[in-house]
């Protein structure tokens, strides 16, 4: 589908990628019906809070080295900022870069502003941001309040851009705009494509854009062996670095949900091809992925050498891990397609995935190429498995975990505590891509093994705490409140 860079607002993910937030079934059914185009999304008659797209924009834009984010909203919208700051400082430290604070201003809209408008405040805030931080770019993000009161953020940004002579980029991402908080990634990437990326000065044939969150462990030794240079984006990049991502020879991803829009935009507008292979989690995907890179860069021979040597290197440890982990069961709670990638790893370790709660499922990606379909690849490698799409609703996750009682619950984004209360060891699968490629597989296996070897902490918590759910709820069907149905 074409990426439209003329509109300041990115097209919603539910429209572009037909993303689902509610589904109960299995992978094969999901794939079949997606292909036929006959799955509808469903609403719930009971929900708990999840996240919003404005929050996810900060995941990218607020992690840039020399840009400011001016959030046009009330002070509460800045609630995620201490977390983003801690993340930024930690990420910089791990990458060996200078540790400093994020650059962020919130316009602190109050009751008066909701009546008279907040435009004057926004202009003042942007000028103040420029004065305080001397950034190379300013991103102005919208919030529920700013959107409802109707401040014309786009025009204000255009005027200020003329005045300040740096990009001042309106980023439309108010929380109520979309049901899919991952649209926030798209909104951020849309701003970058629209206003930051410049046409290539000269193509760099050994440079690969690598889209991920915190970059550590990422392809380092592998790329070196093939003679390629990774260009890690978007978090921790500088504006200058982003200006020249059009010069790369290819783009790869940690997770298609994160960078689908950016990769497709680079391909469409600057001829930077996305590597059409699922992210390299587990052996099959890693082999497949490296072969695709080998094909694109005319390095097929080098790649085969790498594949062979890496597989040999991990073989003894993999054997040990398989001895301990074969037959152990896992339940995954993560966003698609990362959840499907995690399944690959678990299957390689000999484990069974008894069920999953997916935060959201994108039925297609911006580059509409079936070679990018992680779920399809995973089912081809390891067969069918149960899939539920729960949109991060803890009541559904707890209900499912209680029924499946796996040996381990692998989760992303703050769900591990509920599993602990059920006495089920749980592991937070971090944003640091330490589980990719071959040594990543071993690292992950060791992490899983350590997690289940000493369950003392978990057992004690389970003994001394209670879940906040009624017994009635725990006995119901996990998706009872999906599609407006409701028992009792």
């Amino acid at each position: 589908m074409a990426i439209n860079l003329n509109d300041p607002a990115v097209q919603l993910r539910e429209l572009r990628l037909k993303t689902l937030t509610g589904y109960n079934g299995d992978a094969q059914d999901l794939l079949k019906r997606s292909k036929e185009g006959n799955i509808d999304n469903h609403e719930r008659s009971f929900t708990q809070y999840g996240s919003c797209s404005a929050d996810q924009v900060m995941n990218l834009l607020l992690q840039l080295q020399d840009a400011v984010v001016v959030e046009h909203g009330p002070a509460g919208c800045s609630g995620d900022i201490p977390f983003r700051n801690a993340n930024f400082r930690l990420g910089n430290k791990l990458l060996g870069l200078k540790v400093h604070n994020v650059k962020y201003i919130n316009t602190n809209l109050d009751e008066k502003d909701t009546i008279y408008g907040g435009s004057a405040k926004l202009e003042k805030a942007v000028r103040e941001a420029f004065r305080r931080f001397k950034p190379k770019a300013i991103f102005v993000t919208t919030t529920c309040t700013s959107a409802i009161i109707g401040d014309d953020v786009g025009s204000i940004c255009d005027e200020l851009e003329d005045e300040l002579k740096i990009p001042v980029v309106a980023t439309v991402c108010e929380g109520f705009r979309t049901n899919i908080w991952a649209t926030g990634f798209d909104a951020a990437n849309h701003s970058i494509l629209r206003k930051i990326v410049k046409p290539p000065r000269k193509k760099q044939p050994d440079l690969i854009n690598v889209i991920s969150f915190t970059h550590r462990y990422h392809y380092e030794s592998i790329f070196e062996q093939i003679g390629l240079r990774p260009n890690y984006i978007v978090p921790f990049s500088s504006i200058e670095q982003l200006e020249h991502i059009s010069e790369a020879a290819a783009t790869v991803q940690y997770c298609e949900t994160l960078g689908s829009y950016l990769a497709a935009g680079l391909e469409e507008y600057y001829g930077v091809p996305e590597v059409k292979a699922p992210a390299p989690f587990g052996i099959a995907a890693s082999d497949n992925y490296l072969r695709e890179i080998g094909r694109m860069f005319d390095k097929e021979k080098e790649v085969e050498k790498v594949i062979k040597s890496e597989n040999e290197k991990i073989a003894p440890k993999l054997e040990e891990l398989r001895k301990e982990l074969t037959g152990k069961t896992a339940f995954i709670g993560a966003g698609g397609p990362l959840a499907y990638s995690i399944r690959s790893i678990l299957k390689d370790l000999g484990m069974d995935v008894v069920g999953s709660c997916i935060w959201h499922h994108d039925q297609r990606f911006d580059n509409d190429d079936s070679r990018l379909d992680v779920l399809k690849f995973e089912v081809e490698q390891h067969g069918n498995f149960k899939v539920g799409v729960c949109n991060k609703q803890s009541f559904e996750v707890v209900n499912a975990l209680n029924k499946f009682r796996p040996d381990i619950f692998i989760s992303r984004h703050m769900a591990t505590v509920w599993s602990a209360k059920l006495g089920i060891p749980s592991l937070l699968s971090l944003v640091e891509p330490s589980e990719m490629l071959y040594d990543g597989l071993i690292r992950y296996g060791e992490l899983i093994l350590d997690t289940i070897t000493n369950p003392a902490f978990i057992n004690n918590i389970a003994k001394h705490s209670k879940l906040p759910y009624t017994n009635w709820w725990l006995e119901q069907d996990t998706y009872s409140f999906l599609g407006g149905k409701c028992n009792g």
Partner: protein
Amino acid sequence: MSQIVDQIRHVCSLGGLQTALAISRTVPILHAGPGCGQKLWGAIGLDNGCQGSGYVGGHSVPCTNAGEKEVIFGGEEKLRTTIENAFKILDVDFFVVLTGCTSDIVGDDVGEIVREFQNEGKPIVYAETGGFKGTNFYGHELVIEAIIDQYLKPAKKKEKGLVNIWSVVPFQDPFWVETYKEISKLLNEIGLTPNIIFGPNNGIEALDRVTAAEFNLLLSPWVGLKNVKHLEEKFGTPYLHYPVLPIGPTETGKFLREIAVFAGVENEKVESVIRKHEDEYYYYIERSADVLLETRLLPRRFVTIADSIYTLAISKFLTNDLGLLPETQFIVDGVLDEYKDQIEKEFKNYTDGITADVVFSNDGGYVQDEIRKIKFRGRPLILGSAWEKVLAEEINGYQISIAMPVSDRLILNKTYAGYDGALRLVEDVYSLVLNDFQ
């Protein structure tokens, strides 16, 4: 016009959701967008002393996740079904419905819906806490107002010596749990019966006792004043407003004597409690005096950057008890204009005629610029939040996080209040200094 915020040190009024969660077995229900809950819990909970979900917090909090449909067509029906289903799904004793910006601007009649459930006898109240209305200090007061207006009933009879404690804002202050417990412990010792609403185990039983109290104690410069006044109007319960959270023997002694007079506690009883605690406190201070005095490492001058409760409490202790010298003190909780004068006065009556300047601002960037202008003698002690780390490096100061965001510490049952609390503060400050070079 409220100032722009650079370096957030508070959130918005919907942050009152954590006040609801601070009452045991109570759950807030949000009628708001999908992002509010996580951001607010993150800022004043998870990334503030590592205060996680607990029993029914974090992602187990129900929320209507108001989307475009609710903004255009209204969200009342969605709220109704969310509440109905919350009763079925959650095992809690009390529900507090809170609104976000979208509902308040769009004008959903939340009161009407909640009243339907109240009329059925359900334990539920509501407050309109749209974020643009103010800070979470204001939101905290709104939640308590809602409970006073819609839930509390007059007591059959008053209980002599029963006193409700209203003080620090739960979660916003990561030391809240033990702080309430410490005050409670001291009041018990002088023969009073404290009633705390916030913290583990108290819950709806504590709420039900509120109107039986002989008096209310407000231990805070301004947050909560409207609540105790309201309790007096509605239930005839008098209140004692003691504006300084007591840290250390000078203030704690003063506090105990004042409340004893107010409550009619025997002078001897109070003095013996004070003496016991002072003996213990001074044993340790005396023992550490050599080090504190002779190594000349303890910083002489300090700034605090915190809400009005902590700037006042900490600066009093450091000045009146430890003999340090206060530079400018920065208050960042968005104090309403009507309270500013009386708060400023408190900073003019330290021991020995010492005074300190106070700056009210919730713009962290501005506060830090002001601090950079101060010409410190020696390395300053900076008691603020994690935002101050960068500043401390720049000006070669010692930095400790004691106010939101305390994102760099795990706080469990620690408090700085009272006698023991003060010793904890001395330990933390001095260990920080020692750690700097060893």
